[in-house]
């Protein structure tokens, strides 16, 4: 692929939209005045979609402008502007095609896995990994049909739209174009490309494609002709009838054409005898056009075709001699001449001046496969391509298309081609990189799904050599990013990003960035984002989302939820801080034994099984109160001692714990043994040495010391 083609990797100018805020933030003509007032525009772009917020603001902050602190009304307004890239009308199609895309990825994964196991099973197997079997192609064909069905459904929906706005019309064009492209890929690479079997001729598929996507002549044309007058004479006199017949012939609607010719033939006034005679003859021959079938061998079909072609040949010769006999005129060989002759149609006559006979002759010439005649009659390259295939190469296979397409395109002004024509011609010419770039210009949906499909058909390799990026990954990420700009499509967008594949993992990186920025309006949405992250292994994003949620919940005073989220993000520091807040709240409440945090940590412990020292401390401290309240000082003492010795209490809480031990030390029952008491004293000493909060009642600590001494005495006596 030449370098030149890579350069086409640019956005068409016409696809860019110029956006104006109307009315502007600076009213017309006031820009200079506003600038003098030290005012300017500030803006910030949206992290997820292609929107931005903008406002009028001072160039310097008000603090720097002590003397001039005028406040402008406009300064208090923020404008949020965004370009809508995903119209709501497209949502059903997006959801449908996303479903197909997901199932296609699943299907290909299972196929590849089974191939891998096959390859492992018999290393010298006949099927090499990566080559698609007939069954694979059949399933791809079915998937492709589903995509097309979705496009056609969307076209129907648009047609039923109540108002025919410019937008609806352009959407319809886009979908019809996408369908035409997709359909052509399907017939070239799937329908006629069954491995193992003989390659099927492309012609019937191509004509089916042509007449479905670019219907001509339109049914309305025929109806109009008949509406003008259904009798043979009316028909023959109708100036539109011969162009209509020519079009029918070009598109291979030979039976319709034959019927029409038969209806014209009996005309008395406007048709000469020779025209009537030859019209009947052409109709007969047209009806006898050989049609290939799967059962027939190529040789037998060719024989029949040659016979039929010979008949046309002799008919053509006969008509030409008729035309030539009174005043010899050359057969129309160029488009201009043919048109000149067609428009020169005057009243009915005989011989060389008979335009009807000339039209009939050009129809026969075209059906004979005469390149000049076909070229002369074709209005579009599609017409010419179809007629050439149908009448001169009826057994052509897909591999004939590139050269033929090149020949046909040469006949036309390719620089006047619309984007759809360019795309189709590039596809027919097998210039796949160019084709992908053009597809992208039709719609990002098309390039993304097309590059994905091409990857599965194994024809994307040629693009890889040309593109600086991995084509499938590039386009799928692009589509995913487009979807991310729509509020409802964040999940679809994330899944496209996640399934963009590629060894570089660009999709995963982009996905991670987006996932962390999706606004989490509700717990349910947060859970869904987290699940999507988990499904694609985005641990870092999941942690950040949990941390963010934890902070949010903490701010909102939902401490239980905050602890849960911090714990899941393994943010032990924050868990500790929230627990300290619970502890502080308890102390503030006066330590009334009414532990308000009980239900909070219950919920957290039940749900998460979070292991955290602070949480453990709070829970055990609650147990201590429960035992004490229940009149079981021994158990309470054991718990308290365990809390103190395990070192799970925050340093600032140790003193409170020691004070809590006083009633147990002084109680009727002997709770602490001598060793336990020593342990308590040791902790008290440490506490005193650290001297963290010396001002806190040292009298309490002396009471504690005395209580310890008494308890020690009792413990020795008991021992």
């Amino acid at each position, binding site marked *: 692929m030449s370098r030149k083609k890579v350069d086409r990797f640019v956005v068409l100018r016409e696809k860019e939209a110029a956006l104006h805020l109307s009315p502007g933030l600076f009213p017309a003509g006031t820009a200079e005045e506003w600038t003098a007032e030290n005012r300017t525009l500030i803006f910030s772009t949206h992290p997820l979609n292609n929107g931005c917020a903008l406002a009028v603001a001072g160039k310097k902050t008000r603090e720097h402008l002590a003397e001039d602190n005028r406040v402008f009304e406009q300064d208090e307004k923020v404008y949020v502007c965004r370009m809508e890239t995903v119209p709501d009308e497209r949502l059903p199609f997006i959801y449908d095609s*996303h479903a197909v895309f997901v199932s296609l990825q699943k299907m290909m994964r299972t196929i590849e896995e089974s191939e891998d196991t096959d390859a492992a099973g018999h290393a010298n197997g006949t099927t090499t990994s990566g080559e698609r079997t007939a069954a694979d192609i059949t399933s791809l064909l079915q998937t492709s049909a589903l995509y097309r069905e979705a496009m056609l459904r969307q076209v129907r929906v648009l047609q039923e739209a109540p108002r025919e706005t410019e937008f609806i019309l352009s959407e319809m064009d886009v979908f019809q174009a996408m369908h035409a492209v997709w359909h052509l890929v399907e017939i070239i690479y799937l329908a006629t490309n069954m491995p193992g079997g003989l390659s099927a001729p492309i012609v019937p598929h191509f004509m089916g494609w042509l007449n479905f996507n670019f219907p001509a002549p339109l049914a309305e044309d025929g109806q109009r002709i008949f509406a003008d007058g259904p009798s043979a004479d009316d028909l023959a006199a109708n100036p539109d009838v011969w162009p209509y017949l020519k079009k029918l012939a070009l598109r291979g609607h030979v039976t319709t054409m034959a019927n029409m010719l038969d209806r014209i033939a009996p005309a008395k006034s406007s048709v000469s005898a020779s025209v009537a005679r030859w019209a009947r003859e052409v109709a007969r021959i047209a009806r006898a056009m050989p049609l290939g079938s799967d059962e027939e061998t190529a040789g037998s079909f060719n024989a029949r075709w040659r016979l039929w072609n010979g008949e046309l040949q002799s008919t053509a010769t006969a008509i030409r001699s008729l035309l030539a006999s009174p005043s010899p005129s050359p057969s129309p060989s160029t488009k201009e001449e043919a048109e000149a002759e067609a428009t020169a149609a005057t009243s009915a006559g005989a011989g060389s001046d008979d335009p009807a006979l000339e039209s009939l002759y050009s129809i026969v010439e075209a059906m004979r496969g005469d390149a000049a005649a076909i070229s002369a009659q074709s209005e579009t390259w599609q017409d010419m391509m179809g007629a050439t295939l149908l009448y001169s190469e009826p057994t052509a296979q897909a591999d004939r298309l590139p050269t033929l397409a090149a020949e046909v395109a040469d006949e036309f002004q390719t620089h006047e081609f619309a984007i759809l024509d360019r795309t189709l011609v590039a596809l027919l010419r097998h210039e796949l990189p160019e084709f992908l770039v053009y597809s992208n210009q039709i719609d990002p949906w098309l390039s993304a799904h097309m590059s994905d499909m091409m990857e599965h058909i194994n024809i994307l390799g040629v693009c890889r050599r040309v593109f600086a990026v991995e084509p499938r990954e590039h386009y799928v990420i692009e589509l995913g990013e487009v979807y991310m700009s729509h509020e409802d499509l964040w999940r679809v967008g994330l899944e496209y990003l996640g399934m963009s594949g590629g060894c570089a993992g660009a999709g995963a990186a982009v996905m991670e960035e987006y996932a962390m920025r999706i606004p989490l309006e509700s717990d349910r949405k947060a859970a869904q984002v987290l699940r999507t992250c988990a499904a694609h292994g985005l641990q870092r994003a999941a942690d950040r989302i949990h941390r963010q949620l934890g902070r949010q919940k903490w701010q*909102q005073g939902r*401490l239980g939820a905050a602890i849960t989220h911090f714990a899941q993000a393994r943010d032990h520091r924050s868990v500790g801080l929230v627990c300290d807040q619970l502890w502080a709240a308890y102390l503030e409440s006066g330590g009334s034994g009414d532990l308000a945090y009980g239900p909070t940590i219950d919920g957290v412990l039940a749900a998460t099984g979070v292991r955290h020292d602070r949480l453990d401390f709070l829970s055990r401290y609650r147990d201590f109160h429960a035992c004490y309240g229940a009149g079981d000082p021994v158990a309470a003492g054991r718990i308290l001692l365990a809390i103190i010795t395990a070192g799970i209490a925050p340093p600032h809480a140790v003193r409170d714990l020691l004070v809590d031990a006083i009633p147990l030390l002084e109680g009727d029952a002997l709770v602490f043994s001598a060793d336990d008491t020593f342990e308590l004293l040791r902790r008290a000493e440490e506490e005193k040495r650290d001297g963290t909060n010396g001002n806190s009642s040292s009298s309490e600590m002396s009471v504690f010391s005395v209580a310890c001494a008494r308890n020690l005495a009792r413990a020795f006596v008991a021992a």
Partner: protein
Amino acid sequence: MTLQVQPVARRITAVAWLPPHAGAAYNDARLSFVTGSGGKHRELALWTTGNPDFADNTTDEDQTAAAATLAARVAHDGDVRGIAAVSSQTIVTASSFGTVSVYQTDDGAAAAERARLELRESMTAHRFGDSAPAAATDVAVQPGAAASDAEVASCGEDGAIAYARVARLDALQRFEVDSTAVTGVCWPTSTQTAACTRAGQVKVFDRRAPADVAAVLIASQTAAAAPSSSSALAFECIAAHPSQSFRLATGTNAGSVLLWDTRNMRAPVIEAFNVHRASVWDVCFDPVGSSSSFVSCSDDASLAVTQWSADPASSSPAAADEDGSASSSPARPVRHISSFFNVLSVNCLDVCAFTRASVIVAGSDSGNLLIDKVPASDHHFRLF
């Protein structure tokens, strides 16, 4: 296939059937339901669909036509997080902005062009400590009360349950009952509410003492395995059995549905059904027949109808045949319902209680309305 999928281009987040008009119960050829959507398009929509009990009377055209027809739609303040039908004319919604709203409806049964949905009253019910509005998560209407006098309970991410009379929404009472979020609320009886929390607890309240938790139920570790060691077990939804007031069902974030018996406080979970692969967003006991099955929907884009009753008399013979070869296996018959064209989360469901046939309506993030109509089979009426 009994499932009909109708694309509506809205992320449907809540759905509820409307009860039939007085006097028309079990005779109405048309059924009405209300859906709520969220995200970009926040609105309530009123739909009608054919009653499958009268399917024989309808022509084939009705079968091929759209599953449901839109009768009316109205913008809603915030994502619709829950809908509860009080009567055929009154519905209550809960929104992501923490409001509880009462809407008047008329499905146009009297005159087709009269179908309408109108906001009557709206009230902020859920706030965080910093007075920012908190998203509501569910709303449920008191059973057995007259429509004019019924009370609704709503719950939200502020960990509170709010009670209000439909007729007097402004006299709303709010009680903070949990430190995480309350994700679902239901009324087992007209004097009792049960709520499930994101911390994996079910709390039961006596309406007459709404501030005090009457009972806290926790699933034992064996009954409900947490989704993974790192994440917590949370309940996403709760449903009360229509006739057995001690029986509750909760959906978990691990994809299972837990069945509870509140009479046994020591081991309240009687069985865990692992029917889904992701969070269960909504669960509902089948109100038809003997209610021996429940319907659940999930983030894995599927619906499931699970036969839970251990009572052999009420299990259908068809299910027995399917399990015939492995009759000893304790696996319950589960009917999974999913559609190729619906790959995103199914957010909500409701089972119609007013038909002999089983009619499930559900809504999904894929912008689809899913309607599953199973004609009244013999097994519902086995008892008669």
